[in-house]
Every structure is written in C-alpha cells, then in structure tokens.
C-alpha cells in the first residue's frame, strides 16, 4: 500500500490518504512532498484527509492540518481509526468522517495470467516505421486479459462495442511537479502531470493520463474498465503501462542510458483490439 495517495471523485471531492504511513513524520514527509499542486486546484473542492491508524496527539494533529492548509488544501473532514487521534481532531474543531473514506480503486492484476500472454515479435530497436502514417505496431508485449475480463464490465474483443462505459469524466487533476520514486497519484478522472514521473512512481486514473515530461514509472489509465483511456507523454519510457485490464511492459533491455536515449518524440498508448499500441499520432 502506498504511503500517500490523492484520490479524487467529482461528486465527493478530494481525499488525501496517508493511512499507509506508519509514523507521523512519514505522513508529514509525504504530505509536504506530494501536495505541490496549485492552490487553484483545491478551491471549491471538498477536501478530506484519511489518517488511518496513525495515533496523533492534539498538537500533532494541528501540525498535520497546518501543512495541508499551507498548500491551500483545507481538510473539512478527517477520517481516523485511532481514538487518540479523534480526540485531537475534536480539539482542533475538525469534523470526523463517518463510514468508510474513499479508497484507491481496486484493480485486479492477476499475475498468474502471465502464462497466457501472447508472445509477439517485436524488434529490438524501436521500429523505423514509427515515422510512417499508420498506427505504429506493438513495441511492447501485452498481457492477455483472458482471466481478468470477468472483473470488468466492458468487453474488449470488439472495440466498436458501445457498451463500454463512456460516462463523462469532467474533472482533471492537474499537477505541476515531478513525481519521485515512491509517490503515487490516483484520480477518478483525467490526470495531467507537468513534470517527470520517475521510476518507482505510480499514476492511476479512470480517464486518460497525460505526462508533459518523461513517463518512466508505472501508469494505469482506464481503471474501472474504460478501454478508451489513453496514456500519453513527451517521452514514453515507462516500466509498465496499464490500460483498463491490459498490461504492457517495456522490452527487456538495459534501461540505463537515459540521457543518450534516442528521443522519438511524444507518443500515445491506447488499447486496440485488446492490445496496447503505441503511436505518434496524438489525435485519432
């Protein structure tokens, strides 16, 4: 479980979840490093905070609230499993959440399905056809989602099938920072990162993911079955890409020469006939 997650749902607001942290200092570290969003983002949003099992004295609660307020996120509701913390919350005049807080989407990535995956031939070098008109071919191997398909409501054999969930995704979470290893962001809409996503960072979105920088971590778009979701980046060099139920991984070769890697330009990844394809065309 990641140490901090930002979960936003259009109808419920934004939840900052630090329940994965085990100490207050950890929670503070992650809050400070991840909440570098423009304060415009928080305005008008109903912001909530999930402290999980963290036990905080009243002054520590005040400290955590102050950090969130410092970046413009003023939590109106706070969830906590600890009675000690709840006392602190009441003393700080914060409303305590009842019931369960929003959680990260449950995604079933059954790794035992690996045996089914289709071996595809892919060239060792990026194919030269990348500059051609057509959608460029499989650059990555894709995991066959056979055993996973029952988990999601959207069938994927027929891309024309209109039964795919196409509910509008009105909100976009817009972050202007580089995500470092260990940081995660999740959003029930589209996700835009202005900055790099370093190896070890994870992005999750129900909609599209757009990285205005280098995507070198893990990105999962279309959580919940949205097979129309796309992942795009100025430099698409991820460890893994996941769209809806499909997973694709980068080719097995040493990934160390980042500075001198041939820059092939901005690319988009999307699901075509159940397999993830990378193309240079941004509009389709």
């Amino acid at each position, binding site marked *: 479980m990641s140490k901090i997650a930002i979960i936003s749902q259009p109808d419920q607001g934004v939840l900052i979840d630090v329940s994965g942290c085990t*100490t207050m*200092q950890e929670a*503070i*570290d*992650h*809050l*400070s*490093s991840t909440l570098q969003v423009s304060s415009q983002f928080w305005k008008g949003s109903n912001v909530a905070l999930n402290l999980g099992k963290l036990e905080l004295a009243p002054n520590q609660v005040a400290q955590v609230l102050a950090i969130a307020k410092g970046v413009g996120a003023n939590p109106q509701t706070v969830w906590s499993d600890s009675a000690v913390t709840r006392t602190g919350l009441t003393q700080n005049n914060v409303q305590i959440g009842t019931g369960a807080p929003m959680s990260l989407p449950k995604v079933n990535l059954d790794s035992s399905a690996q045996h089914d995956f289709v071996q595809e031939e892919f060239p060792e070098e990026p194919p030269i056809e990348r500059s051609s008109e057509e959608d460029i071919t499989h650059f990555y191997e894709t995991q066959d989602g056979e055993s996973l398909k029952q988990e999601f409501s959207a069938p994927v054999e027929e891309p024309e099938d209109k039964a795919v969930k196409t509910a509008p995704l009105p909100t976009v979470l817009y972050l202007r920072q*580089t995500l*470092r*290893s*260990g*940081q995660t962001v999740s959003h029930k809409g589209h996700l835009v990162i202005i900055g*790099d996503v*370093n*190896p*070890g960072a994870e992005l999750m979105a129900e909609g599209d993911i757009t990285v205005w920088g280098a995507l*070198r971590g893990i990105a999962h778009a279309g959580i919940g079955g949205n097979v129309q979701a796309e992942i795009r980046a100025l430099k698409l060099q991820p460890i893994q890409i996941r769209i809806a139920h499909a997973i694709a991984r980068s080719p097995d070769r040493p*990934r*160390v*020469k*980042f*500075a*001198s890697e041939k820059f092939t330009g901005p690319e988009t990844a999307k699901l075509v006939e159940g397999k993830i394809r990378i193309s240079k065309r941004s509009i389709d």
Partner: protein
Amino acid sequence: MSGRVIVITSGKGGVGKTTASANLGVALANTGASVALVDMDIGLRNLDILMGLENRVVYNLVDVVEERCKLRQALVKDKRLPNLSLLPAAQTRDKTAVNSDQMKKLCEELKELFEFVLVDSPAGIESGFQNAVAGAEEAIVITTPEMSAVRDADRIIGLLEARKDEIKEYRLVLNRIRPSMVKNNDMMSVEDVLEILSVKLLGVVPEDEEIITSTNKGEPVSGTDNTRSGLAFRNIARRLRGEDVPFMDMDPQNSTWFSRIAKFFNPAARV
C-alpha cells in the same frame, strides 16, 4: 560562529556514505576548517574504523544523549589533524536509542563548536535516516551510477524535498564511476544519472582501488596526494567552501603517456 550541519545520505547501502564522510572531513580539515564527524549508524558503526580511531573511542553519541558524559568527553580528536574530531556511534545499541529531538539538540551544540558538522547517515528511509537528517540544514546525496542506487537516491531526494523548511540545500555526489565503462555504454554516465535525479551536482568520484587499502589502514585517501579519488574528494571539499572548481577530466583517452605505455605492456593495467 555557527557552523554548517551537513548530512551525508543515500538511501541505498554501500554506495560510499561513510567513505565520503571520512574523506570530506579530512579534506575540509586540511583547508583549515574545524570539522566534526558524527556517526549516526548506531549499532553498525564504521566511521571510526575508516578514520583509524577505533581504539581511541571511550564514550559515544548515545552516552552524550543519555547524559552519561559531556559532549567534549565523547569527541575523539583525529590522530593527524587537531582540528578534526569524531563523535562515534554506539556499537552495542541500535537506532531506537536516539530520537529526532535529541539529535537536533546535539547538532545545535556541535554547530557552536565547529565550522562543519558532517553527519554520516545510515542506509534506509526509516528512523535511522530520519534521526540523521533531524539537525541538518544541508544534505549531500551519494549515489553510484547504477539503477538501483539511483532509484533509492530518487526516493531520498523526494524525502529531503519534503523537508524544505529545514534542509535548504541538497546536492549529489556520484561515486565509483568507471569512465571506460561509461564510454562503452556499460555504465550510466553523469548525464544519465542527472536526467533522472535532476539535482545539483557537487562532485564525481572515480572508482579507485586505493579506497580499499585506505579503509584497512584507517587513512582516508584525501589526506594524501597520489590518488584520483582523493583529488576528487578534495575538490568537493573546496566546492563546499564556495570555490568554483572545475570537474575532473574523467575521459580515459586523456591518460598520460606513462599510463599508455603501462597499458601497452599490460593491457589489464588499471591506470
């Protein structure tokens, strides 16, 4: 006078934090500054070994924090440089022996006595690391040019960025680089590492066998003139003091005529 408290950290173990701490300490002391080395790897102390002072340790950091002795009693003066002192860690305790507040207080005290306080952090991101950074205002992140070390360094930098109110400056030292391997594209280059970490570069230290012998002898390389790694550490010390020192030429092609002749007779010679 209020000294500079600099924590030397990395995330990954074994990349050269303790070696760097010892060598920077000696190099800074040789420029005339008063330096305190603090070993925060409680339970697995090594800094005293690298400095050749392990038989001179009487009291340690935990004794100071638990008020069994005064700070001055625990500080061990270096056997060669009078302006360099070591505050050793405890070998028989573990990292729970100290907390952040105690560390802050200790660093406040040390700042008043020394121009430079170098804190050698243990590996990891848990309480050992958190205690080590507690009193620091600057940080040096050490990494080697390998994906695993760079990944961990990235994590550490993320954690240091979160403490931007306390840690005002953090810079990178790239350790154990082998220029010939970089040239063959078998090893990450400085640019590759900076592409991921995006942090200011303080120095680059080449791989050097002399480090092994220096550790065994208890004499840090930066104290003598004849090693490349020692020179690199001395340059880093000068940069810490504000001097603008150009980076060493690591290009293996620019080796001297002597090394080329040596290589002719013995291709495996590392010169």
